[in-house]
């Protein structure tokens, strides 16, 4: 416990953990190869350590971290389900992991077939007509999707300027719209936590390019008026963008394509079990209806008889949003999962995810304020306002959960709920785990009454105690410096 050394602080001059074979070609004077003024004069200050130092250091760091494999992780909107181990094995097969992106297509037939087949799965699950795997994350998918909308509208000769986003939306939605050059129009949710068709009507006009919607939304509530909303947006010539962050709630039950959405992204690192990696790599494939397929990033994967190939011939494509074909190995993991579960298994996922969320909601709502008290989908949002009245903030509750070995829910989001606690248990958690979480939440609630100080001071058993974020931001130190040792 306490401070942990940085790898640089373990460095000893002259120690090595790495060796190459002797150079087996004639060595030339480097000055004849690289002009002297282009050469590096001082070595970068990288650590000099033995292999065992590296291993112990990073194993030590891993023990100061917490993942789904360590325990319950009900982080709302992040779908922290169990990540099957076989995914790790298949994505490390040499045929995938050691494949160069520019091999001739005849040497990439397995990879292309995988991309093609994965696309067929996603089409059936979502009701969309074409997919690209190029986007590397959800926000990147949003960017791709909105650019496709922009390209579509401009081809029609329309320069629309507005994108509508509900106030409950993820921050990436407005940030993406702005990045694509749109003005962001935020609309207030109604008292049921949903998009209010009347509010929507007020902002709909011929300048609206798109409405971005998450459904179920960030409160975990299904947008029941979606058909009407879709019609309203389409009637003014706008398109509907589906943020797939919450797709885990509806597989096999309903499909964005059938709700009226034109474009969507999927977070493979949420719904399709690929691990989050401590903040990436993710994968954010984008699906479109047929009328938008010509605008997808190049290349798309096609099939001709038994042969798979990359099609770069999309003259109206938005271009590329990243190099090569996306986070391919993440797609391999998701594909492994899709194959393992099949249609029935995927439907079971959504059923159990929604069952788990509703079970927790029902058991916790007596003790924590539930602003929208009705059937939820894969997640729900509590408010810590009763606890706040007793002087304990949601942040304190979250930090206290760490002491009980539970990763806290998402807190202070969505912004429209005061002291929000956004809870998404996912389908892979057993009833025992949920019951234990309920017990822990009730214990903490008792502590709010009996010993609030315990919460203010939490966490108590983590490798470090509560950290000073204000100090870090006022005086940013973003790298190690050798001068520290002096």
């Amino acid at each position, binding site marked *: 416990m306490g401070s942990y050394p940085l790898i640089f602080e373990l460095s000893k001059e002259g120690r090595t953990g790495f060796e190459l074979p002797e150079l087996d070609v004639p060595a030339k004077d480097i000055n004849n190869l690289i002009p002297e003024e282009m050469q590096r004069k001082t070595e970068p200050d990288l650590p000099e350590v033995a292999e065992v130092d590296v291993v112990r250091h990073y194993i030590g760091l891993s023990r100061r971290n917490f993942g789904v494999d360590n325990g319950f992780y009900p982080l709302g909107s992040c779908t922290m389900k169990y990540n099957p181990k076989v995914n790790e094995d298949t994505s490390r097969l040499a045929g995938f992991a050691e494949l160069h992106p520019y091999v001739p297509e005849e*040497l990439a037939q397995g990879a292309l077939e995988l991309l093609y087949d994965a696309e067929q799965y996603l089409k059936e699950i979502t009701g969309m007509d074409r997919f690209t795997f190029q986007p590397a994350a959800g926000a990147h998918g949003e960017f791709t999707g909105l650019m496709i909308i922009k390209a579509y509208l401009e081809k029609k000769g329309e320069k629309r300027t507005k994108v509508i986003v509900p106030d409950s939306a993820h921050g990436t939605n407005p940030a993406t719209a702005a990045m694509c050059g749109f003005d962001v129009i935020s609309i207030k949710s109604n008292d049921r936590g949903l998009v209010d068709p009347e509010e929507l009507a007020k902002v709909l006009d011929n300048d609206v390019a798109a409405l971005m919607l998450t459904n179920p939304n960030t409160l975990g509530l299904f947008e029941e008026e979606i058909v009407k909303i879709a019609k309203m947006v389409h009637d003014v010539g706008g398109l509907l963008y589906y943020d797939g962050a919450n797709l885990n709630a509806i597989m096999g*039950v309903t499909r964005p394509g059938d709700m009226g959405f034109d474009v969507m992204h999927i977070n493979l690192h949420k719904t399709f079990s690929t*691990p989050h990696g401590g*903040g990436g*790599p993710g994968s954010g494939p984008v699906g479109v209806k047929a009328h938008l397929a010509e605008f997808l990033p190049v290349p798309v994967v096609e099939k001709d008889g038994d042969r798979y190939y990359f099609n770069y011939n999309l003259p109206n494509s938005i271009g590329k949003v990243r190099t090569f074909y996306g986070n391919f190995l993440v797609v391999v993991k998701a594909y492994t999962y899709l194959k393992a579960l099949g249609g029935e298994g995927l439907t079971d996922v959504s059923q159990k995810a929604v069952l788990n969320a509703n079970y927790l909601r029902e058991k916790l709502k007596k003790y924590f304020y539930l602003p929208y008290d009705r059937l939820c989908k894969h997640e729900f949002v509590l408010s810590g306002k009763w606890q706040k009245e007793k002087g304990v903030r949601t942040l304190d509750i979250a930090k206290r959960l760490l002491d009980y070995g539970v990763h806290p829910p998402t807190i202070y989001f969505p912004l429209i709920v005061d002291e929000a606690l956004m809870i998404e248990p996912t389908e892979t958690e057993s009833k025992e785990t949920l019951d234990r979480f309920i017990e822990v939440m009730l214990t903490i609630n008792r502590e709010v009454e009996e010993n609030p100080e315990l919460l203010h001071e939490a966490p108590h058993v983590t490798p470090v105690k509560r950290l000073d974020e204000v100090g870090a931001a006022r005086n940013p130190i973003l*790298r190690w410096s050798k001068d520290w040792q002096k």
Partner: protein
Amino acid sequence: MKYTPHTPDEVREMLSSLGLNTIDELFSDIPEEIKLKRPLNLPSGMSELEVKKHLANLAAKNGSADKYTVFLGAGVYDHYVPAVVNHILLRSEFYTAYTPYQAEMSQGVLQSIFEYQTMICELTGLDITNASMYDGGSALAEAALMAVNQTRRDKVLVLATVHPEYRSVVKTYTWGPEIEVVEVPYKNGIVDLEKLEELIDDKTAAVLVQHPNFFGQLEPVEEISRLIHAQKGLLVVAVDPISLGILKPPAEYGADIAVGDGQALGNGLSFGGPHLGFFAARKDLARRMPGRLVGLTTDKEGNRGFVLTLQAREQHIRREKATSNICSNQALNALAATVYLATVGKKGLKEIALQSLQKAHYTYERLIGEGYEPLFTGPFFKEFVVKVKDEEEITQKLLKHNILAGPGISRFYPELAPALMIAVTEKRTREEIDSLVEVLGGDR
């Protein structure tokens, strides 16, 4: 295969605690008209045994580096990845964690990112580095946006020698905000300095350079730096991190932002992803940085700790005014880069760079000896282009000998065809290089 643990009894019990009888009732808030009302039309699930076999069959159809000798480059390079990297990546405390929002429980990821930030600063000579971007191309595009915001100018110059896919990404990113992108032509494989000087004006936010460039050639970065800074624009350079074992750090020739693809740092070829983009800049640009930053702080007992910091730049707080929409990045790939750089260390990185340099030049000399003509004659690092009679024919011929080289230049620069790109890393042995030369030599 299912990963849900519920027994039928538990499902009944949980439903009844909700006053429900069937699972379907959980979805009663979804309008009937949009319900699927049929099972998903997908194949049945598979056992782990079957799924593994299926994936192994697909993998076996690919021509990967375990079967072929790789002289392919063009942005993704076959450098050696020490065994330790994968073993650390398999620690599931790392790979099954989310973005480190709860710092006290995420010190492992946070500290490793802090170490990563330090290492990239050391390589580039710049003051600050973010926690990673998606890849080199999107990092370059975000750098262009950042330069536009910083300078409040709306034109960006990009050298035609920058990786064609990077340029394509830059064009996509700059289209929305209506930034003008002008390509600067090349001459003998590097920037045409006269043209560059003509094109830079007081509306130019930045010039985007790749060094070594797509052809492997070294760009006259000092001269480019002088030209762009004379007009108060920014120098953005995309670099090969391995080259920085021997090439001058970008800060020393005046780069304001340095980006690049970190694939070569402990990440495999991966059919192009996931890799990572790195992104480093001058200190005064900190608040315009896209993406996550990890900062040092202390806990209430005075212990050192790490947190995500300067978050007010980011989408979850700033929403439409954020510096970027980026949320997830490539943290695990950045961890691979960190473990890689820790393992090879300062001497190892230099040795890897030197051996790549020497072996590439040995290959080059031998091919010239066989009568091949180089497309460009300037200094290069580990990649070069030679003229060939027929790109497709020679590629096929090499494949027959289990050698992958290329890509053919016609793919991106038809005006330069026919010619073949060749990349050589420290992994290639003299024997492998000699085989390449032998196959190519017979074609002359």
